[in-house]
């Protein structure tokens, strides 16, 4: 896995959502109040209050029957207009995909990754355009053909129209997705080469926290902070950091809540790792680099080294450590042989297990990141993770549907399609980049891995205008700009743009959670509820509410006749 899964930050994201949503709502309210007062004079105040009251009233008086009627209408429309044909496309794609995928003779785990990520990607990218088009064209077409007239002249609230449309499109999307996912699941099972079938599982890892000790054995840096990084061996991407062999350097994982229940049926502790090896000299090429687990109980001070193991780079290995094992320790010919009980002797009273990892070969290095060592508990069947990944795709489709429907209430079909498409594409591809410009901590943390683990700051060189000025005048970003009104104007405009970018960045959905959920299954892991499913769910909810309100507001204040 090439990413660290941190729990979904419920409280901070909720706060952020509240800030963005609240301030946006406030702005809209103030602007519309001003507009009403400006056009109607003092009478506008009453009109505004009335409208606001009526809108709130609509929220209270939602009729499920009407919403479902509209949802069913939406579904029937799509169904009778053959929107479900996309399923056929998918089936055809799967029929021929085998040609391209089987040609690859990668190792079994990789084959699983290839097949699973192919299916999941096909699922999301095939249903997405369908949902997007449907959602973006539904209401505008309804208005254009004036069918909407027959609905709004019934007691159907415009809020219910927005809700019904969203529900209907969501249902179509989910139906298509479910059908495709079922076929896709069977396809993976059937098409995957026999030798890779065994790898079609969902690991359930217990991950620990990772800290380091340097070659002198210090676990703190000069500033007295806990060492969270090892050595950089020159990788461009510094997700993994390394410890030097045959020194006191250690990677230290601490696992919480370790008890007899995490052992397997035979009473073994399954430690699985994905360590990397880096050789500073070739050494004996045939021989892998050795590492060692050392179990450490900080309460008793007991250190129990376990047998030497070889690194299986890029493949990973699972070590079964029996509950009772003999540990040989000591140096200089004096060996000390002791038998330990893993749970009794090495786990602290509050259930913490500390595993130190040492590289044995001098001059060689062992690389790791937090997810690279975990306790593997009972595996779940592949379908368990697959279904969760599909649920996350479904949630992504919902987000796109909500955005599409919402946008389509105030612009015409083609514009809505384009706008929604741009939102999706930009969210997928450029959001991180925008984050680094505005200085978002998450985006900076991601960028940090590409910058030699330097703490990232907002980029030097200022905004657009300043950058253009600096490029044209060949001015170094560290040089101060000449003081003067021109600089002030330039900086003001740039700040305005960055603030606008901040808003855009905040409004764009974070698709990371959706894409990552797929990576778990593809890598042979179960999709964790937190952060993946929870994150996706929260994002979906976070878009649902504003999208409904925006859609309703836009549909309510517009004249349906106006072309």
């Amino acid at each position, binding site marked *: 896995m090439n990413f660290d899964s941190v729990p979904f930050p419920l409280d901070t994201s909720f706060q952020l959502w509240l800030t963005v949503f609240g301030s946006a709502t406030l702005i809209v309210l103030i602007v519309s109040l001003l507009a009403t007062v400006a056009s109607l004079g003092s009478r506008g105040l009453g009109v505004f209050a009335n409208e606001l009251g009526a809108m709130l009233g609509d929220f209270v008086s939602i009729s499920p029957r009407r919403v479902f009627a509209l949802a069913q209408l939406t579904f029937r429309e799509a169904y009778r207009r053959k929107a479900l044909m996309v399923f056929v496309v998918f089936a055809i794609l799967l029929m021929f995909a085998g040609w391209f995928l089987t040609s690859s003779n990668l190792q079994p785990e990789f084959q699983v990754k290839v097949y699973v990520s192919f299916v999941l990607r096909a699922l999301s990218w095939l249903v997405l355009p369908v949902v997007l088009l449907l959602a973006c064209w539904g209401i505008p077409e309804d208005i254009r053909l004036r069918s909407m007239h027959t609905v709004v002249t019934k007691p159907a609230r415009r809020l219910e129209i927005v809700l019904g449309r969203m529900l209907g499109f969501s249902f179509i999307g989910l139906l298509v997705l479910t059908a495709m996912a079922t076929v896709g699941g069977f396809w993976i099972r059937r098409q995957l080469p026999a030798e890779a079938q065994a790898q079609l599982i969902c690991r359930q890892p217990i991950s620990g926290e990772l800290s380091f000790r340097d070659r002198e054995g210090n676990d703190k840096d000069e500033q007295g902070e806990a060492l969270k990084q090892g050595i950089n061996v020159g990788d461009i991407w510094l997700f993994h950091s390394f410890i030097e062999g045959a020194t006191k350097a250690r990677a230290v994982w601490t696992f919480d809540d370790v008890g007899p229940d995490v052992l397997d049926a035979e009473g073994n502790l399954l430690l699985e790792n994905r360590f990397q090896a880096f050789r500073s000299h070739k050494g004996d090429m*045939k021989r892998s680099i050795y590492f060692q687990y050392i179990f450490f109980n900080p309460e008793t001070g007991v250190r129990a080294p376990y047998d030497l193991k070889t690194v299986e780079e890029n493949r990973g290995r699972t070590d079964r450590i029996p509950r009772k094992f003999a540990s040989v320790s000591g140096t200089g010919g004096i060996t000390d042989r002791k038998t330990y009980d893993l749970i009794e002797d090495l786990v602290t009273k509050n259930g913490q297990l500390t595993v130190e990892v040492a590289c044995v070969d001098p001059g060689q290095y062992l690389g790791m990141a937090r997810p690279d060592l975990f306790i593997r508990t009972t595996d779940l069947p592949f379908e368990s993770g697959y279904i969760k990944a599909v649920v996350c795709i479904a949630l992504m489709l919902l987000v796109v549907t909500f955005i599409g429907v919402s946008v389509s209430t105030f612009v015409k079909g083609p514009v809505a399609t384009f706008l929604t498409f741009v939102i999706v594409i930009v969210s997928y591809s450029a959001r991180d980049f925008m984050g680094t410009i505005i200085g978002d901590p998450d985006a900076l943390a991601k960028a940090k891995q590409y910058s030699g683990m330097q703490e990232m700051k907002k980029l030097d060189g200022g905004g657009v205008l300043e950058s253009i000025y600096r490029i044209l005048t060949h001015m170094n970003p560290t040089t101060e700009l000449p003081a003067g009104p021109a600089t002030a104007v330039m900086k003001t405009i740039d700040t305005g743009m960055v603030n606008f970018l901040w808003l855009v960045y905040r409004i764009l959905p974070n698709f990371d959670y959706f894409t990552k959920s797929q990576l778990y299954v593809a890598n042979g892991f179960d999709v964790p509820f937190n952060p993946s499913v929870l994150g996706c769910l929260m994002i979906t909810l976070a878009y649902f509410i504003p999208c409904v309100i925006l859609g309703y507001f836009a549909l309510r204040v517009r004249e349906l006749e106006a072309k």
Partner: protein
Amino acid sequence: MNNLTSQQRKFVYLGAILLLLIPIIALGMPSDGTPNSGGSIARLRQKLDLGESDLGDLDPSGAAMNLALLGLRGVAANILWMKVDEQRNQKDWAELRITTDSIIRLQPHFEKVWEYNGWNMAYNVSSEWDAVPDRYFWVKEGGKFMQRGVERNRRSSYLRWYVGRIYGPKIGLSDEARYFRRYFRQDPDPRFKNGPDPEFNANDEDNYLVAKRWFQEANDAEANGARQNIMDRSIFRSYPARSQLDYAAVLYKYGFNEEYDREVGDRTLTNDEAKALEVRVREKLKEDTRAAWALGLDDWTRRYGQELFSVEYLPGVIVQMRLEMSEDELQNLGKTPEGIAQLRRAVDQYQKMNNYRYWRTRALCESETNTAEAHWSLFAAGEEYLKQNTAEAQEFAEKSMELFEKTLEKYPELRDEDNFVEEALKSVLIWNKVLNLRGTKPPETFPLKSLWDAKQAMVPEIERRFERDSRSKN
């Protein structure tokens, strides 16, 4: 325009359409297959071999993808290429493999794309893996990938040359060469049951011989007009012969163990059987290496040496030359005395540039039975020394020394070739060590004494290397 009636306007439109049609027809009319038919673009396409189906196999899925991308395939390929780079940085090998396939589906006739990505797998990705079999796997992936590129670009000499590079130097000359060469014929993947990967080495041959074939194909393609811009043509054309020479040389280095292990297979041998097999393998290799060198000599002097190159000897001065030229040919081609002198200098310069004379002498000498005997006696001496069979070791070493002495007498210019000298000195070194073990003092004179004395500076390094090799054998 507003003053025109609608009818008049329509006529104007019609006129404009007709006017535009003329260049379109002139340029764009498709060819009906016969030469010089169709519009000028079609003719130009024929002339420059730009037709897609002329280039190699068509990939319908790629064509469909191009259509779907509405002409943005260049952009899409770039994005994917950046993704490959990121996936490489993030060590996401499975995804890298898929992305690479997507790129070439978009750009199937862009040789550089094949070359870069194949190279990426065979060199960069391969080296990221710690286990040698894994490294070999990615070398294979890169090689196979480039071969698919050749299928899509049938005329390319450029891609064929790069395929040859992977088969030749990548497998035979990298740090892992000892393992790679073995894996080439006994793949570590259990699916191939200790045989070669049929997709990579269908005929169970030596990697250098496969490389030689690819280089030869590259030469043929080049001769058919496929330009290459990798290197000077005179060097480019030397690769098939060079591969043959590399093959012969590598047999000395790894040949015995590889052949012996192949012969043994899963069997366990008694000491006598093992001894008999060793002798048999040595005898076989003696002939094999000699023949390989003889063929190499032939390739080098009769084929490569006879190729006619037109080289820009001095700025603006282009001369026609061969690397192997008799005096008569020099006279004929040079014509004027000045021309002959120029040609002579050009030949000399290019011979130096390509190390032509060294390889010619080396191949000539190595293709003699005596030289082969000298090498394999030296090899046997080393083996026997390691087994502490001092009597046999001494015998083999002395034989080897005598033979090397004879060869050097015949080819005195080899005294300046380090590779050859090293072999010769090694025989003396082993001989000294054996004598040391047996407690006898070396006699005052012995074969190769003058060389031994002259090149004393090289001895410590040779000794170190010998010790290291011996250790790794045990």
